[in-house]
């Protein structure tokens, strides 16, 4: 049985946010929903400031507080380590969002069609049509409607219905087909690694053996499956700059 995990190499991340874009396009997330989010932190005060970037996907914790508190079992952890949300069982109570120390959960506050960026751009404009090839978002990926895994639940992608929760799924619809999450595939500097950590020969396992890793918010006891190499855990003295102006 594969056991998936992710490693983020902070020596390489330069804050281009390609992973954020790729995630949005792959998973059809709406406005203001950043399943993958990259922090830009500033530490210290001018002129002694330091900048750093920190990609923050869902940590797919082994002791996930979101799984524990879900009243209906819509949020669950698979045996391969991925934590998913069943879009058909979720009742939209948003308890998982509050239990999560990392802030990775997003709620569909409105109809998914209304939350796409479609309202901001005129997609019928000929210049834009030339670029998009005539397609109008949401670019529906049919895989997002499928039932995945031995548990056969509708867990791929976002924007299924208003009033349900969603978050990073490690692109389960890609992983089930033998691929990697969209963010991992897209990163231009290979800062993201993903794979089976039970298999000692995968690139991620080798990387973890060769480098010292740390995890976010280790003190909460959540046992995250996302590890970081380089940089250091963000402290309360960090300030977030470049916060997404994303309040729908």
């Amino acid at each position: 049985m594969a056991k998936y995990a992710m490693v983020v190499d902070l020596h390489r991340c330069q804050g281009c946010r390609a992973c954020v874009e790729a995630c949005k396009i792959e998973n059809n997330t709406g406005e203001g929903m950043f399943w993958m989010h990259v922090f830009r932190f500033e530490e210290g005060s001018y002129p002694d400031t330091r900048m750093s970037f920190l990609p923050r996907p869902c940590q797919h914790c082994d002791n996930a507080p979101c799984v524990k508190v879900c009243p209906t079992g819509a949020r669950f952890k698979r045996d391969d380590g991925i934590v998913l949300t069943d879009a058909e069982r979720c009742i939209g109570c948003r308890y998982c969002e509050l239990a999560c120390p990392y802030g990775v959960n997003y709620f569909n506050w409105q109809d998914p069609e209304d939350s796409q960026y479609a309202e901001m751009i005129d997609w019928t404009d000929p210049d834009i049509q030339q670029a998009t090839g005539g397609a109008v978002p949401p670019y529906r990926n049919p895989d997002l409607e499928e039932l995945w895994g031995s548990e056969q639940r509708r867990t791929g992608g976002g924007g299924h219905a208003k009033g349900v929760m969603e978050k990073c799924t490690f692109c389960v619809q890609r992983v089930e087909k033998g691929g990697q999450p969209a963010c991992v595939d897209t990163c231009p500097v290979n800062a993201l690694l993903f794979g089976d950590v039970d298999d000692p020969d995968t690139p991620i396992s080798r990387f973890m053996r060769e480098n010292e890793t740390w995890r976010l918010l280790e003190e909460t006891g959540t046992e995250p499956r996302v590890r970081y190499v380089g940089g250091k855990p963000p402290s309360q003295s960090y300030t977030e700059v470049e916060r997404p102006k994303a309040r729908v």
Partner: protein
Amino acid sequence: MRRALTVGLIALGFVLMIVGYFASAPWGAESVSNSDPGFAFAPAVFVLGVIVAFSSALVYELYDDRRER
């Protein structure tokens, strides 16, 4: 008869509560099986058990002795 029914209902209520509680999804967050109840509507069985146990009070007071004659 009144006593028997009352005690019976309380006992039935507790049985339903215990069955319903333990059949609702098991403790633990490690795998998918922790998110499904043992049988559908197990939590409803638990709630029913609570209701049955408390309706024993209704039976105890409302039971019509005259029916026995």
